[in-house]
């Protein structure tokens, strides 16, 4: 047998049919569904008189529109948001899929609760009408976003029409320096390869620095594979993965666990597998980074300065000028002199328990700078409960943070948590696009520890100065 990559192996294990021209029908093990990209798909089924083929493999949860305020179970003020959440509720019940309503403590961001509940397992195919589905690649699952037409297709057939992508290896060698996190790795990779660097590829992340990451860190890394343009990101499962999965509500148990484990242990790229593209980074050279512009590739070390647009080639100069104008920044300004108005710690990128622990460690014994609006939005009801149990919530509240309920919150401004025009935000989310967090809002992406440091000082800050 010819040597295979991890992606090749998962692909082969899910192939229902392949045409000579490469068009393939791939079986989908898990279909995650949220309220924004599914109503038109369910409506399509209804109009055609079709059922959901595998409701037990279909998991629905509202997250994008739900407010994160304490009274949200009783009321969603925005009429359109309410209609969308109610539509999911109706569709989930009518079609009989697995469902976590707003009132369920297990509700949360779809990419956080999938792994948390053990729905996401190594070697699976996972899709969702959401680009950050790449998150689940952290388990060695082939996971990616799809559009609403494809959501309808998966609901009706439990398969996806697709073509095989190319194989790309991103190796991060050596050990990470102190104060440097998975978010810094993922942003640094995008800074190096660009937002289209992974286009047409499935990335496998490997190397010592990746192996040493926790599952939370690996999810942060894979979450942003899409920001690098990749179809999906993958990390081969290992003991860290198996330890995380064991005992989760929907993980296999007993003999099934042993059988699953035996297969999972074969899920790694063969030594002489073929790679279409290889990128290597030295972990010791990665530093805490932030974004300065309106694309996730606009990455600079926190110790650096806002770049000069004319220093860019290939049509990027025009975009950079536009970005600086939007961001209200002048070239040459040291990053550490940029004042912020708001801090958002949350999102499917960085709202897991480890992220909250990292932020709490910086915040402990300190106060949020006067005039700064700082919020923490746990990724799920269970993360929230755990953070309360561990005393993290008290640390945040004492420091002056707003302690919110689970949801997508300020990552994308579809709910009441939004930036006002010109408001500058230190955010742990994944996109700094124009208007993403609210019309005219200015987003700087960074790790939870860096966002916590910014909350304390009121400006972009090198977290290493505070530890």
């Amino acid at each position, binding site marked *: 047998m010819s040597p295979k990559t991890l992606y090749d192996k998962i692909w082969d294990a899910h192939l229902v049919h392949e045409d000579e021209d490469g068009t393939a*029908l791939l079986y989908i093990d898990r279909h995650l569904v949220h309220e924004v990209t599914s109503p038109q798909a369910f409506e399509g089924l209804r109009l055609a008189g079709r059922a959901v083929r595998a409701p037990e493999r279909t998991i629905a949860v509202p997250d994008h529109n739900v407010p994160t305020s304490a009274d949200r179970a009783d009321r969603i003020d*925005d009429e359109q948001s309410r209609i969308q959440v109610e539509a999911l509720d109706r569709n989930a019940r009518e079609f009989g899929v697995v469902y976590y309503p707003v009132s369920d403590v297990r509700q949360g961001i779809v990419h956080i609760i999938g792994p948390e509940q053990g729905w996401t397992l190594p070697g699976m195919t996972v899709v969702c*009408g959401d680009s950050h589905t790449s998150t689940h690649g952290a388990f060695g699952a082939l996971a990616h976003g799809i559009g609403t037409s494809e959501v309808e297709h998966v609901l009706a057939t439990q398969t996806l029409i697709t073509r095989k992508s190319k194989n790309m290896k991103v190796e991060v060698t050596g050990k990470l320096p102190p104060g440097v996190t998975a978010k810094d790795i993922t942003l640094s990779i995008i800074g190096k390869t660009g937002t289209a660097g992974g286009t047409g590829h499935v990335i496998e992340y490997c190397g010592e620095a990746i192996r040493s990451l926790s599952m939370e860190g690996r999810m942060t890394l894979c979450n942003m594979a899409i920001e690098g343009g990749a179809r999906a990101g993958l990390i081969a499962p290992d003991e860290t993965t198996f330890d995380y999965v064991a005992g989760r509500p929907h993980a296999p148990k007993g003999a099934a666990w042993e059988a699953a484990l035996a297969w999972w242990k074969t899920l790694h790229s063969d030594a002489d597998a073929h790679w279409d593209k290889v990128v290597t980074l030295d972990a010791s050279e990665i530093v805490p980074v932030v974004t300065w512009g309106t694309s996730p590739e606009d990455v600079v070390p926190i110790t650096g300065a806002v770049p000069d647009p004319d220093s860019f080639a290939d*049509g*990027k100069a025009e975009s950079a000028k536009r970005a600086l104008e939007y961001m209200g920044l002048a070239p040459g300004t040291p990053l550490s002199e940029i004042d912020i108005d708001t801090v958002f710690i949350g999102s499917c990128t960085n709202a897991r328990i480890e992220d909250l622990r990292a932020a709490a460690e910086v915040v402990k014994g300190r106060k949020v700078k006067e005039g700064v609006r700082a919020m923490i939005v746990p990724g799920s009801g269970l993360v929230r409960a755990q953070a309360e149990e561990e005393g993290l919530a008290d640390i945040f509240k004492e420091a002056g943070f707003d302690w919110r309920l689970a949801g997508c919150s300020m990552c994308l401004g579809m709910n009441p948590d939004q930036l006002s025009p010109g408001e500058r935000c230190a955010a742990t989310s994944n*996109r700094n696009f124009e208007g993403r967090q609210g*019309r005219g809002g200015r987003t700087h992406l960074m790790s939870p520890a860096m966002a916590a440091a910014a909350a304390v000082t009121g400006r972009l800050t090198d977290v290493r100065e505070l530890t």
Partner: protein
Amino acid sequence: MQKFERLTAIAAPLPLINVDTDMIIPKQYLKTIKRTGLGVALFDEMRYDANGDEVPDFVLNRAPWRDAEILVAGANFGCGSSREHAPWALEDFGIRCIIAPSFADIFHNNCFKNGILPVVLPQAQVDALMQDAEQGGNARLTVDLEKQVVVGADGTEYPFEIDPFKKHCLMEGLDDIGLTLGRAAEIESFESRLAAERPWV
């Protein structure tokens, strides 16, 4: 789905790289439970000012590009979210073809599900077509899917590659789900194999 065969139309120039899905249609329009009527929201934050009035110098607010059916844009068009609202808005506005040096994966797929043809051409050729687009009604472009060629205003032909299956579906206006349900027996046999080999899934 609307078929796409051959189109001769005004092309609008959008010489920006990394045009993301939040630019194409911002989040407040994603709250709809319908697919239709999103054309008014296309490029909302570039097209309208804070009062909701049209920004006069934005290309799609200007004659003749108001009537554009083709968009010529920079690399990595459609990056960002999986929202199919982006092609829904483009289609509803009247855009049937986008020409760029590269597209983001999910957006590229979504176009084909909505009768929109994304054409990938080398940067130099996109630059030439961008110049045509800037001349508006005096330099209409022709896109012929059957022959896989874009014809510039001066008659220059720019051949392009396309996935044969996607071309077939677009030319015939085919419904994917209907096609796949024709393979129900293969799906069932895969499911039996799955139940035997990986029962934990």
